[in-house]
């Protein structure tokens, strides 16, 4: 099948009954992977290619309380990595970022998002091909929606000036975040020389 095409709901793989087991602690930050988090915590969800590198990008930012890798934007509930790699779930590899609104803000995360990858590549990112690598911002509240859309407009201006193409990033309302398998959580902390193809365009936000 052509992995550069999004499958429809009726073509998608069936749901899995079993929720993915999640380790209790973040391997780097030591925080609880599934909450509860402090009062000023808010979640944000970013997809920008292979989630291993993306998660590392965010756990290094100040004010980030917890991160996790998973799947969002498609149809198959409790999908496995294998399901997602088949291109038949319509999910994209997504990183959940729990940030402390006292110490940082969504705009700072957006800056890391736009500068951290190439948002003009459609159904791929770098060498990774397929719908599971498409770029997306899944907003968790109205404020994120509003600034997410504003930031896309701004960054498109910068990219166009630099001669780059049209942004293909999806900006959609967050749905359920399906945790990925434990082996993928904080992958680059567990495998320091693991694969990471994440690279920005070099255009400043």
């Amino acid at each position: 099948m052509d992995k550069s095409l999004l499958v429809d709901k009726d073509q998608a793989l069936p749901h899995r009954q079993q929720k993915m087991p999640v380790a209790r602690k973040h391997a780097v930050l030591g925080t609880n992977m599934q909450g509860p988090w402090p009062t000023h915590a808010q979640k944000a969800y970013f997809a920008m290619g292979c989630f291993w590198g993306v998660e590392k990008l965010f756990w290094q930012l100040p004010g980030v309380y917890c991160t996790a890798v998973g799947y969002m934007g498609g149809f198959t509930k409790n999908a496995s990595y294998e399901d997602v790699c088949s291109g038949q779930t319509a999910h994209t590899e997504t990183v959940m970022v729990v940030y402390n609104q006292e110490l940082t803000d969504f705009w700072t995360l957006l800056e890391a998002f736009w500068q951290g990858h190439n948002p003009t590549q459609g159904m791929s990112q770098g060498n990774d091909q397929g719908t599971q690598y498409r770029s997306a911002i899944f907003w968790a509240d109205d404020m994120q929606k509003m600034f997410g859309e504003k930031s896309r407009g701004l960054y498109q201006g910068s990219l166009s000036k630099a001669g780059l193409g049209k942004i293909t990033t999806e900006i959609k309302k967050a749905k359920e975040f399906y945790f990925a398998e434990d082996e993928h959580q904080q992958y680059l902390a567990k495998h320091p020389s693991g694969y990471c193809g994440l690279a920005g365009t070099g255009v400043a936000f």
Partner: protein
Amino acid sequence: MHKNNPHNQSYDMSALCAALPELTPHIIEGQRGQQTLDFSDGQAIKALNKAILKKDYRIDFWDLPDGYLCPPIPGRVDYLYHLKDLITPPTDRAVSALDIGTGANLIYAIVGSRAFNWRFVASEIDSMAVNCAKQLVKVNKGLSKQIKVRHQSDENSIFANIIHSEDYFDVSLCNPPFHRSQEEAAQGNQRKNKNLNYNKSKRGSTLKPHKKDQLNFAGTHKELWCEGGEQAFIKKMIEQSVAVKEQVGLFTCLVSRKEHLPAIYKTLKSVNATMVKTVDMAQGSKVSRFVAWSFFSE
């Protein structure tokens, strides 16, 4: 309206639409054939605010998450012009102002910094509103040098945590939450909306009443209510102003109901304020006022 308030004439809708084309679809024809808006439609008011901020205050981007208070800009600007009359500007630096409870909208700080070149610290207890306000500062060029947004993490404190030891403010201002409960705030909103629709029907408009979720006055967060309502809030503010009396030249606060004034004066007397002044403002048919007090001898 204050004589210097640039918004003391009716809105120039053509100029506003030219500044912000997204306002155009909201324009309707008024009774006298003039261009106007449905002032009970939250989306229209939001677009109007965006247009005013863009045209008159060089604000490229302003928006609000749903459920947060969308303020009428002319009235807000009026308060600022009256404050300007009251304070003696320092000669060696810009005026520094403190906005208590800025909401997600940050209007006083935005307008005050753009129109008067004042510096602002803006406080807020709702963390999403704080986040929103902080980002407005980041997104609009030039604001970050003039506005600092600080989160009030203690619901019972007004100045503590917000005024740092090195701060001095020429003036503090506040649009206090005026309802006593979230329920009362919601009812107040409905009433306000009913009145608007009633006025509209009087004028012969055929617009349908708006659904609850479209209300312009929907401020379900703590912008509109606090325990004890406006009266309790202002009392607390006056009592807590004593602890920072050396750091604020002039404290001020809007008072929505004049029936609250006697109790306010009594509290001001009990804390030995050296100067107390009430300034009346009139915006159209709406009369409002703010109380100002100080602990400095004149």
